[in-house]
């Protein structure tokens, strides 16, 4: 995605660059009704080039499909067009995918919440089916045969009775004259040819040959580079600065103060990086200055004395605990972690007289534009935003601070500029996964049934760190879930599988503890609870019990749970982002330390669109979940992060990954979330396997700090 023609930016795209005329269909994605589809003639299309939400069948037979959502490795640029192409019966080799710029006429143009495919599934199918209907109608007309006698296959319409055959390209002009059908019939799942198969990433060629795809690669003639020195400690701000030395350095054009710090602007990245270090800045206090040691005390205080918000209450919890034969109680804690997508934050901005051009990687382009509009007081329709590929996101690029910074710097220096964050800026600059601590309590009756359950979650800027309508809610008569939040200047935000990425580990470890205390097999213990929730559900349940049961049984079967002598296994199952994933982790002891060798995973995410991409998402999520549970930790001293780069912030590497045995359940549901749901259960399965291997519960992340790995065992965050 490199742009060259400045004057065309208001038009977003030159139609002719993507299509050779033919059938040009626009859809109102927000409305699943095919009647809202519109046919454009090529001339109209040329004039209405901003019409983004469309698909074209060119006279050359090329099918062009716009992918509106930001691509950060979830492979949406491949799976979206697959859905359209399936219903269109297009020849996949003739399908072209184009990353769309921000356009109001797209619906839900964002990446987050594992929601894109579930949301767009019916709309994309209708788009494909509508075009197919019109192409068939055009062929039938030309041949003088009923449309019902015609079929479509790999980019051709066929009339089998007479052996006639026409390519989509030859029919495209005529199809454009066919009235848009009010309704279309979608395929039966069993007739899918493309959906459910493994299709390679459409961007492979460009990625593998080093093409300029990412925000950091974007270059515009005359563009300047900028880096910002932000206050190193949360709770401080710039008081004054001396830029004399920095300004005297080669290549430096200007040094300006911005809301978030002091920006150094120059002719190359390296010169700006060096000059930034030469800035002399004095900071002053603007809020609380906190350290990790303070947070540890705050957690204990909030757990014991905090004024909690009740999230859910069923039955009589007090009585259940009073009457209990046994009470199990445990606390779990997770530190802040950084998103650290491998491409650091960056954005290009060119603020001109009354208009703005933005280019770069972000997950919610619409809100980035709104934020820039507010800052500069320039109407949104005068701001364009072109999306580049994202070098990872993990939630970090949901926040638009770096986009706004770029616009601010450009407006001050009156030049096109790219703001770049160093790795250190990125890691110390906030929007972390919040640190949290949980206190769980379970009441068991004499036969080991869980009759009461209490959870209090406390966290730093964590909002509600519970998921009160998830399991075990629904399976326990007496239940209380509450939370307390501590407000801090340390900025936090959504991190891949927000909340559940740590809650699932804590809860699935605790349930394991309860099972052991009840003298039951951990898998059977959960199955009993699921059966109970099914037979006599208590209150609201956001999860489908049958799907929980199915993935649980399947993973037990595939992993040989409880049947393999001498194999140490830990189990976990979790529902998030509308999907269900169960895992069994296998541990061995090597040199006195546990090592996770294998993870069995069974996922029910409804209909799989791209099997290759789906496997990649789940395996990546397991690696990610295990890596952060083992190593991830960001601690604070006097408001400043103590880790700054990958030398002291450890990420999982190749020798540390487990083998993965992955199976998808075909539940017959439409697609549900996939980018996130396999991550939450991993920490729990790993912790439970390590418990079986060592007899030690892991009550805190990162696991590396535990004595089973030779750590201190003390809280170190």
């Amino acid at each position, binding site marked *: 995605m490199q742009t060259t023609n400045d004057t065309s930016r208001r038009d977003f795209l030159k139609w002719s660059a993507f299509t050779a005329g033919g059938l040009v269909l626009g859809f109102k994605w927000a409305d699943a009704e095919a009647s809202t589809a519109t046919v454009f003639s090529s001339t109209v299309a040329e004039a209405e080039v901003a019409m983004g939400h469309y698909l074209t069948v060119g006279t050359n037979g090329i099918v062009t499909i716009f992918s509106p959502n930001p691509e950060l490795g979830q492979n949406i640029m491949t799976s979206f067009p697959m859905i359209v192409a399936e219903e269109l019966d297009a020849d996949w080799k003739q399908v072209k995918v184009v990353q769309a710029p921000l356009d109001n006429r797209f619906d839900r143009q964002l990446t987050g919440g594992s929601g894109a495919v579930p949301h767009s599934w019916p709309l994309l199918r209708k788009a494909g089916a509508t075009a197919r209907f019109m192409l068939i109608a055009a062929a039938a007309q030309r041949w003088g045969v009923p449309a019902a006698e015609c079929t479509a296959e790999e980019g051709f319409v066929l009339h089998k009775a007479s052996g006639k055959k026409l390519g989509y390209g030859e029919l495209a002009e005529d199809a454009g004259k066919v009235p848009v059908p009010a309704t279309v019939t979608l395929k039966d799942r069993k007739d899918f040819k493309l959906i459910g198969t493994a299709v390679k990433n459409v961007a492979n060629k460009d990625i593998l040959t080093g093409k300029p795809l990412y925000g950091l690669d974007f270059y515009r003639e005359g563009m300047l580079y900028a880096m910002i020195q932000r206050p190193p400690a949360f709770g401080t701000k710039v008081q004054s600065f001396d830029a004399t030395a920095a300004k005297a350095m080669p290549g430096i054009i200007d040094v300006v103060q911005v809301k978030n710090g002091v920006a150094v602007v120059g002719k190359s990245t390296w010169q700006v990086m060096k000059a930034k270090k030469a800035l002399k800045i004095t900071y002053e206090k603007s809020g609380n200055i906190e350290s990790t040691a303070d947070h540890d005390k705050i957690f204990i205080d909030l757990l014991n004395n905090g004024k909690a918000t009740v999230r859910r209450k069923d039955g009589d919890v007090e009585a259940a605990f009073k009457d209990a034969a046994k009470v199990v109680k445990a606390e779990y804690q997770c530190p802040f972690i950084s998103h650290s*997508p491998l491409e650091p934050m960056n954005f290009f901005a060119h603020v001109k007289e009354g208009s703005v051009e933005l280019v770069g990687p972000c997950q919610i382009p619409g809100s980035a534009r709104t934020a820039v509009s507010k800052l500069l007081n320039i109407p949104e329709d005068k701001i364009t935003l072109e999306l580049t590929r994202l070098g990872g996101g993990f939630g970090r690029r949901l926040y638009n601070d770096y986009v706004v910074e770029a616009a601010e710097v450009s407006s001050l220096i009156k030049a096109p500029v790219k703001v770049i964050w160093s790795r250190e800026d990125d890691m110390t600059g906030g929007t972390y996964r919040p640190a949290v601590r949980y206190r769980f309590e379970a009441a068991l009756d004499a036969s080991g049934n869980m009759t009461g359950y209490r959870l209090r979650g406390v966290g730093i800027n964590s909002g509600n760190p519970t998921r009160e309508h998830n399991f075990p809610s629904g399976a326990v008569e007496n239940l209380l879930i509450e939370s307390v939040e501590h407000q801090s200047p340390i900025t936090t935000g959504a991190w891949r599988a927000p909340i559940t990425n740590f809650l699932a580990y804590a809860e699935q470890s605790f349930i394991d503890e309860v099972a052991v205390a009840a003298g039951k097999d951990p898998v059977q213990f959960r199955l009993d609870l699921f059966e109970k929730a099914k037979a006599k559900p208590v209150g609201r349940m956001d999860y489908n019990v049958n799907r929980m049961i199915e993935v649980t049984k399947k993973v037990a079967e595939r992993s040989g749970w409880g049947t393999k002598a001498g194999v140490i296994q830990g189990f976990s199952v979790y529902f998030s982002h509308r999907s269900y994933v169960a895992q069994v982790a296998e541990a061995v002891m090597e040199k006195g330390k546990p090592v996770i060798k294998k993870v069995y995973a069974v996922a029910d995410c409804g209909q799989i669109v791209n099997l290759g991409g789906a496997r990649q998402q789940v395996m990546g999520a397991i690696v990610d979940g295990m890596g952060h549970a083992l190593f991830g930790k960001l601690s604070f001293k006097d408001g400043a992060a103590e880790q700054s780069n990958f030398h002291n912030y450890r990420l999982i590497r190749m020798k540390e990954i487990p083998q993965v045995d992955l199976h998808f359940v075909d539940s017959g549901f439409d697609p549900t979330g996939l980018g996130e749901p396999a991550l939450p259960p991993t920490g729990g399965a790993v912790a439970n396997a390590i418990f079986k291997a060592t007899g030690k519960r892991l009550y805190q992340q990162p696991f590396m700090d535990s004595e089973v790995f030779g750590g201190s065992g003390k809280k170190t965050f």
Partner: protein
Amino acid sequence: MAIFKLTVNGKQQQVDVDADTPLLWVLRDSLHLVGTKYGCGMAQCGACTIHMGGNAVRSCILPISAVRQPITTIEGLSANGDHPVQQAWDEVDVPQCGYCQAGQMMTAAAFLKTTPHPTDEQIASAMHGNICRCGAYHRIHEAVKVASQKK
């Protein structure tokens, strides 16, 4: 600032930069060869891996003044994007976000030259220094294996 001459992907280049400028930024900012990526700037992640005289080197800590041998970047790994490693990476469909992959492939290509028939352990050790934040390690491992089986 000073003039430096270097050979990149078989082409003579001349740049006017500070002597301490890492090769990474010379490639990216001066020569607009942006396939080589910035991930950490301190030799921790491998995203910036290039070949110097055929060896895998981290360009983020290599000052331009220390460059004395020909440089190959991902753009020059093959003429048509069909180096065995690139082919294998496509066949195995490795990339997720894709940002780390140039560095992964440059590491793998240099490794396979010295170790044409690697064991699984050798592959894991050779690739251990390259971070993939997306966690695509299983496929990276498999792709190195597939590449080693190509001629």
